[in-house]
């Protein structure tokens, strides 16, 4: 590790403020492994050797009332897609909650809800309360690149009693994402209303990123975003292998593990065993959680858990 990088990571560990030169050192380094080691140290200070994961079952918002069987393995039922109206959103939540039992129901992108409210904060607060009272456990996500003035939005979330499962970078990726990561790190209110920060953009959304840029982004997120507890990767969207390696570069939570296998390939290739095996192979203890980030059980480290 270069002396400069050593000095910057030490400064981060001590809680010191980074200056422009420190920032250039972090984003410009080619020493990926050194960056990973520093980020891994930071994640272990918060989460020790635990990696949490959630098995998610997606329910399209426009078919929520007619959703088929909800799988037993789901730790989260997630309404996906943009609702056409506030009433449709509330109805979808009620329809799924009625069948969800104890499984948390999440849904919606915060910017979609803002759109339905005409970007009027007072109305957004009312809608969030209505959704919470209908049974919504968390808002699925908020995109940082759409939050030009985030603190008032965070305050509305806080007073409504709803939190956001994850803060994403929206459409920002690669080197363009680094300044946004840095900005997120300055949002004091984010940690109170955002459970996790997901620094990688789903693969299908644009030009593919590279393994180096993805891991650098995850590591920088852990090193810089001290105000949000978890750094999250997406099992389905980021690719299993990249997501697993990211666990050694600062990530501690895995989203979007399927609740249903796409093919019946037997127990060893079931989604739950697959994620357990990958987490353990990365050197961590696998903890299954639900959509409210509550631990359900610790998976056995042995092959036949």
């Amino acid at each position, binding site marked *: 590790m270069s002396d400069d990088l050593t000095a910057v990571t030490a400064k981060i560990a001590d809680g010191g403020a980074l200056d422009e030169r420190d920032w250039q050192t972090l984003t410009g380094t*080619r020493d*990926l*492994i050194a960056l*990973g*080691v520093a980020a*891994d140290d930071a994640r272990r200070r918060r989460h020790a050797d635990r990696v949490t994961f959630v098995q998610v079952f997606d329910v399209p918002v426009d078919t929520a009332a007619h959703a088929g069987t909800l799988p037993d393995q789901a730790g989260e039922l997630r309404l996906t897609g943009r609702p056409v109206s506030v009433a449709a959103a509330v109805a979808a939540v009620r329809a799924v909650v009625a069948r969800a039992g104890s499984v948390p129901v999440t849904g919606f992108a915060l910017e979609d809800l803002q759109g339905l409210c005409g970007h009027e904060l007072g109305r957004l607060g009312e809608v969030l309360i209505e959704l919470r009272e209908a049974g919504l456990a968390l808002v699925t996500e908020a995109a940082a690149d759409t939050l030009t003035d985030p603190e008032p939005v965070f305050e509305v979330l806080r007073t409504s009693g709803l939190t956001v499962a994850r803060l994403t970078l929206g459409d920002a990726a690669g080197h363009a994402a680094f300044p946004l990561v840095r900005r997120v790190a300055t949002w004091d209110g984010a940690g109170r209303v955002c459970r996790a920060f997901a620094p990688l953009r789903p693969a299908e959304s644009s030009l*593919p*990123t*590279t*393994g*180096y*840029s*993805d*891991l650098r982004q995850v590591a920088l997120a852990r090193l810089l975003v001290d105000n949000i507890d978890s750094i999250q990767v997406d099992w389905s969207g980021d*690719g*299993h*292998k*990249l997501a*697993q*390696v990211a666990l*050694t570069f600062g990530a501690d939570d895995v989203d979007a593990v399927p609740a249903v296998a796409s093919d019946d390939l*037997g127990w*060893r*290739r079931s989604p739950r*065993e*697959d994620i357990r*095996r*990958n987490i353990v*192979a*990365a*050197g961590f203890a696998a903890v299954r959680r639900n959509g409210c980030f509550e631990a359900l059980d610790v998976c056995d480290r042995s092959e036949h858990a």
Partner: protein
Amino acid sequence: MSVESTAEKLLAGGRLSAEEALELYVSAPTSLLGRLADTIRARKHPTGLVTYIIDRNVNYTNVCVARCSFCAFYRPVGADDGYVLGFDELFQKIDETLAVGGVQLLLQGGHNPDLPLEWYEDLFGAVKARYPDFKLHALSPPELLHLSRLSQQPVPVVVDRLVRAGLDSVPGGGAEILVDRVRRLLHCDSKATADEWLSVMRVVHRAGLRSTATMMYGSVERLEERVEHLCRLRELQDETGGFTAFITWSYQPSNTELGGAEATGIDYLRTLALSRIVLDNFDNLQASWVTQGGKVGQLSLAFGANDMGSVMIEENVVRAAGAEYCMDEAEIVRNIEDAGFAAKRRNMVYDLLGDPLFRERAIPRRTELAIARQAGDATVPAELSRYPARSRPGKARRAVDS
């Protein structure tokens, strides 16, 4: 010996014993393995270059009597979807390869009892007659052993005849894990035992050919057997110096008799790093993006690899087992440069051939790899009737064709 002292020994230029290597693999954090492997890579390749080759991975037949339990590609003798590529089909593939700047075919196939040694000699001779400068990187040790058995000629004679016909170098396929306990479990001991694989490579190197070496891990082997595999390769390299590069990849379980689950991305990076650490007499380690995908393929460059392998153009074996990744030259170069290295084209013996070709002339982008033949194409090459078949179905087919 502690992990720390083993690391110090390695950084001082020492060679690890099998026991030390195993202890390092079991106990060292992934970051330390990566750091050690990266240090060795940087020592061996201080100029910051990462190389790749433009060639085509062609499987001339999928008919195979070996019946390895980890293989999803082979078809038994007489199967409706068994195929043998014709000379003209292969010429067309070479033309397509040359058009994108390719320099060789990586030519491997099943152990087809109905393709005698003369078929290979005629094919290689015909290729060299039409494309004198084009290289044939062909026939892994088990294929050479199969031809030896089929022709009842010693391996050195088979190698000599094939070299005379046009064989340039030998791929290191079929090694799997060079431990006979594992080979028996994988049902691949009959195609070549560990000693036989190494003996064939010794013959190849003594004949003046260069070869690669490989390892397929993550099936049924123990960790110490991976280390034993690496140590056996290291011993032979000490003796002959004939290996140009080493490639490791994970067993791909889909559609195979053996089944099971694929080893993880971390397993791959750790195994690659360990390989760089143990194989201190190998100059080059290739990334296996075709099994790991582009992202972990690129990360290989931080874990000991100095070469992104082949553009491939075509791939059949790994695809049959469920992995379908594609990287054309532009994508390989983008990944190399994004990791902070300079990209250079090379040939099989790692002579540098130049800068990326797509920057010199327009080359169509490729988003998926070609396959040997389209599904349902049951064409039987006309020239096959010139060669005697060994199997009963083959004899019957040749009788009808002639």
